């Protein structure tokens, strides 16, 4: 057999080095390209929402600039008249919109904290927001779980849906921890 790097033995030693971690497996067996954050089955072009070679996700809709008539660019005229962003003023619909549109942004965290303040809880496994249905106490309640009827926010249908559920408390997210520059604003509704 060929004993140098150009035969089967050469390939084998390459593979062994990748498997036992002495070599970064970027070359062999290579990278699973489906994990690079691109929807390779998309019927639409990918380049038009391509965020960056280092990003794990495509652009959010709000990040894509379009050439619009100059008259539409009004921020420069009204920016000092705009109300400051105060989440306690906003309705649930807007909060959910901001939550789902701001993945990976501090805004998502801030909105999550406000939803928590309004007794919504994020279920980490179901990956959805839920709250107790008003006036409906749990049928079963223990230290670790309860069972009853709850409202779930369905992000696909974009509405609250009531259903019975077995809720384990450890599956709920605790109060979101905000960075200090944000928590000062959040804790004082008068600011």
């Amino acid at each position, binding site marked *: 057999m060929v004993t140098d790097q150009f035969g089967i033995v050469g390939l084998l030693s390459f593979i062994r080095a990748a498997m036992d971690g002495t070599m970064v497996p970027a070359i062999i067996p290579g990278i699973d390209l489906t994990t690079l954050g691109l929807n390779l089955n998309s019927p639409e072009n990918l380049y038009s929402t391509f965020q960056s070679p280092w990003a794990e996700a495509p652009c959010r809709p709000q990040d894509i600039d379009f050439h619009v008539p100059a008259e539409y660019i009004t921020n*420069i005229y009204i920016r000092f008249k705009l109300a400051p962003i105060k989440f306690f003023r906003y309705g649930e619909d807007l909060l959910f919109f901001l939550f789902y549109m701001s993945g990976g942004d501090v805004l998502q965290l801030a909105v999550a904290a406000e939803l928590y303040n309004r007794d919504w809880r994020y279920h980490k496994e179901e990956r959805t927001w839920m709250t107790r249905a008003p006036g409906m106490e749990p049928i079963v309640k223990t230290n670790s779980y309860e069972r009853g009827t709850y409202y779930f926010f369905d992000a696909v249908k974009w509405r609250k849906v009531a259903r019975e559920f077995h809720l384990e408390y450890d599956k709920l997210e605790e109060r979101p921890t905000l960075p200090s520059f944000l928590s000062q604003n959040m804790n004082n509704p008068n600011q």
Partner: protein
Amino acid sequence: FDDPPGLHEKTENLLIEWVNMYHSPQAGRDRTKAFFSFVQYMHQQGILKTDDLISRFFRLCTEMCVDLCYRALVEQNQSPTLIRAKCFHTLDAFVRLIALLVKHSGDSGNTVTKINLLNKILGIITGVLMQDHEVRGTEFQQLPYHRLFIMLFIELNAPEPILESINMQVLIAFCSVFMFLRPAKAPGFAYAWLELLSHRVFIGRLLALTPQQRGWGMYAQLLINLFRFLSPFLRNAELQKPTHLLYKGTLRVLLVLLHDFPEFLCDYYYAFCDVVPPNCIQMRNLILSAFPRKMRLPDPFTANLKVDSLPDITVEPRILPNYVQMIQPASFKKDLDSYLQTRAPITFLSELRSSLQQNPEPNSHLHYNIPLINALVLYVGTQAISSIQAKGQVTSMGTIAPSSHVDIFQYLAVNLDTEGRYLVLTAIANQLRYPNSHTHYFSCCMLYLFAQANNEQIQEQITRVLLERVIVNRPHPWGLLITFIEMIKNPTYKFWNHEFVHCAPEVEKMMEGVAQSCL
């Protein structure tokens, strides 16, 4: 050197004035009026008097904007968002000034003046970048230059009639700059460079919107520069984090191209494979997996797939650039053509090996002229296809040999050392792509070499070249799969009888695993 006295202060004042105008609501309401009054002011300050003064003005503005960014970037108590906002506050205003000056330079119909000005300014920014890169070294920051280039590109690609009339020249200007600032020349700018190349507006303009694919060649050249830069680091296969990130970013860009512009990869695969290192198997597979969007590929795992009767198998693919020119020197090409036609001179084959070898670079193990090998293999194959068609025949295992063409492949397989043989077989495997006449011919060729080998090492290396491409993560080119499946499935080749298949438990397990997936 030797800026006229007072020019620095004048430039600074003008820049401050413009930045304030750019950000003021009053200017926003009537931008053109504000711009023209500013140009008048520039005239009054004498800035537009001579070409030299204009150049110095832009150079000083660029340096001031860059200095401001460096000062902002060292501030420790501010968030990255605020720091960037501070930098962009001035940079974006400067970009707008440049864009307006370009747009309104000369008469509306005079494109030459506009492009000359743009080229001058881009050249100045590039010069400032290179000097900064050299002087600051590892302290160099990409941010200000990245912002200048991308925002200027976006501004100059706005859907306005004046800009549409100069769009092609604008694209050429930017591509020239990016060619100059290629990673090998400005490695400290490499990440920003790839970000620029992969920006949706840049890709859209060069690959989608410019008619008749006139942007494709420039984009291909830029990618070739990227592969060339990565090559020495990828050859070592032990990727440090910075190169690993750049490599992963390159794969992302290639995936976008594979999805959105597969025909682009089809056309330029040859030029790319010339510069992608031989051990970058997945990246090469990605390029070779491209096929025209209108084509429907038959499932390579179909039992009894009759490749010979596929209609696309007789269609010649387009290949850019002209690879025949790579066969040098001219005397070698002449001898090659003579041998292909007449099998003379007899000495051609024995001299072939030395023609393909080269003196290795210092610290390089590469003893062969890889671009020449690639060109030779493809040229001989395409000549063979023409010869078969001229006889009114179709390419098959029965018609590719005997021929002077296969003689050459067989000679190289038998007489080169393991490295040379590996490179020749790699060059053949690089033609195994989507259904076309080249894929079919080289698939037959590879299988013929396997069947006719007088030496098990040849069969081992053919297996090695195909197997390494099959075992990496997807995608896999269609032609690769059908060739490998045929080799392991067809009892003619007695694949499973060979010693190298069973030489180690991992190899046996790997072969069986691959065979199970394929069969």
